[in-house]
């Protein structure tokens, strides 16, 4: 429970409370965007440097395959549950499912921080796994949607741009590669910005995310109780699966928890714009509310401690 009192989480709660109380506190949008770009740069660099130090291991390969498999399979499971229990039409179910198959960079970063503070840091290569898991679910989601509608991307070009060329994917992967190239020594001169400043800027970003998440929930329409329930059950189930898989392939506790967090988290940076383009008739308010306003706060506050607990049990 200690982790709930870390400044990062407290700032998130402050933001959420302020927005619920209808305070006019707000970050300028360009700042929110810049903070998220910064975090992706920093985490990418860090991952690259860690992998540069340890080399490409079988663990890395196993975790990558596991991550890819999860991000392809999770959307299929969630899709059918959303169609059945969630009562969504095929298009909306597919759009939401893609979000849950993909990952939330910020949830991963917060988890990473908490695990590191608790003395069980995940392996650096999980950042590569994170990058790998961002886009496959988009493609799976589109295939699922295609069963239910005739609409498709107007060009393969657009699909490419919205998946592997998505800004956050490019930045994360690019920084990772730069980290690989420069290694620990080359990192030193830029460490004050990308490492020393990381925690503090993460606080500011989570303050902002608290504001955005709570504001999003106030704007939410079409959010049935069933869907909100699913937005809590999905991370719990996917997180548990992530723990099982991590334990099965022999990852350590921290790394297993990180895999669980990736499985449990739902994208709200890379996937929404892709879905708006690929499935414009899906309800953007719906998938943003579920991933950003329900699943994200759940994972940040309750989910991460649970997955950590499960990982400790299983590993």
């Amino acid at each position, binding site marked *: 429970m200690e982790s709930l009192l870390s400044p990062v989480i407290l700032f998130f709660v402050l933001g959420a409370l302020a927005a619920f109380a209808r305070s006019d506190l707000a970050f300028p*949008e*360009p700042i*929110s*965007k810049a903070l*998220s770009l910064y975090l992706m740069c920093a985490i990418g660099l860090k991952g690259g440097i860690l992998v540069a130090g340890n080399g490409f291991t079988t663990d890395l390969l196993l975790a990558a395959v596991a991550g890819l498999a999860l991000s392809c399979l999770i959307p299929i499971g969630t899709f059918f549950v959303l169609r059945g229990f969630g009562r969504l039409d095929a298009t909306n179910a597919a759009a939401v499912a893609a979000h849950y198959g993909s990952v939330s960079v910020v949830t991963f970063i917060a988890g990473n921080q908490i695990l590191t503070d608790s003395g069980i840091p995940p392996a650096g290569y999980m950042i590569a796994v994170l990058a790998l898991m961002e886009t496959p679910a988009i493609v799976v989601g589109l295939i699922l949607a295609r069963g239910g509608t005739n*609409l498709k991307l*107007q060009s393969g070009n657009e699909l490419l741009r*919205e998946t592997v060329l*998505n*800004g*956050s994917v490019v930045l994360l992967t690019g920084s990772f590669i730069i980290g690989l190239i420069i290694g620990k020594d080359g990192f030193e001169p830029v460490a004050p910005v990308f490492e020393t400043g990381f925690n503090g800027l993460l606080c500011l970003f989570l303050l*902002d*995310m608290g504001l*955005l998440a709570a*504001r999003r929930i106030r*704007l939410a*329409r079409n959010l049935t109780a069933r869907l909100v329930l699913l937005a809590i059950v999905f991370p719990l189930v996917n997180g548990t699966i992530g723990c099982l898989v991590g334990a099965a392939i022999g990852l350590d506790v921290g790394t297993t928890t990180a895999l669980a967090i990736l499985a449990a988290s739902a994208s*709200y*940076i*890379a996937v*929404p*714009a*892709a*879905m*708006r*383009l690929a499935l*414009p*008739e899906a309800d*953007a*308010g719906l998938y*943003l509310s579920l991933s*950003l306003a329900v699943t994200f706060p759940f994972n940040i506050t309750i989910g991460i401690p649970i997955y950590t607990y499960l990982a400790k049990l299983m590993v």
Partner: protein
Amino acid sequence: MVIKSHCKKIEILVDAPLWRRIRDQAMEMASDGYTLQPTLGGEGARGRWFDDQVTGGAGSKVVFTTVLEEEAASRFLDALEPMLEAYGLMVTVTTVEVVRAVSGPSSNSD
């Protein structure tokens, strides 16, 4: 100086990730240009929204403006029809005069 009367200024409020499709459509319909403007938020039958750059603009909108001659405008509006519902577009058409140095709002004009 060329003053062209009876042009149609078409303003389309469209989700940020989708504006390029509107542009492609407009450029096909003999439009010779367009301008994009930002928005802060709004509300309609589909609910309330506000500008938010974190979620990749999925929930943000921009105003796409193109000025066309009457006939090109009506062809453009027809071409927009299938997008109106799916993209949730809000389109207004205003009659304007256009003042430019040389040609008019569409390339195949006076």
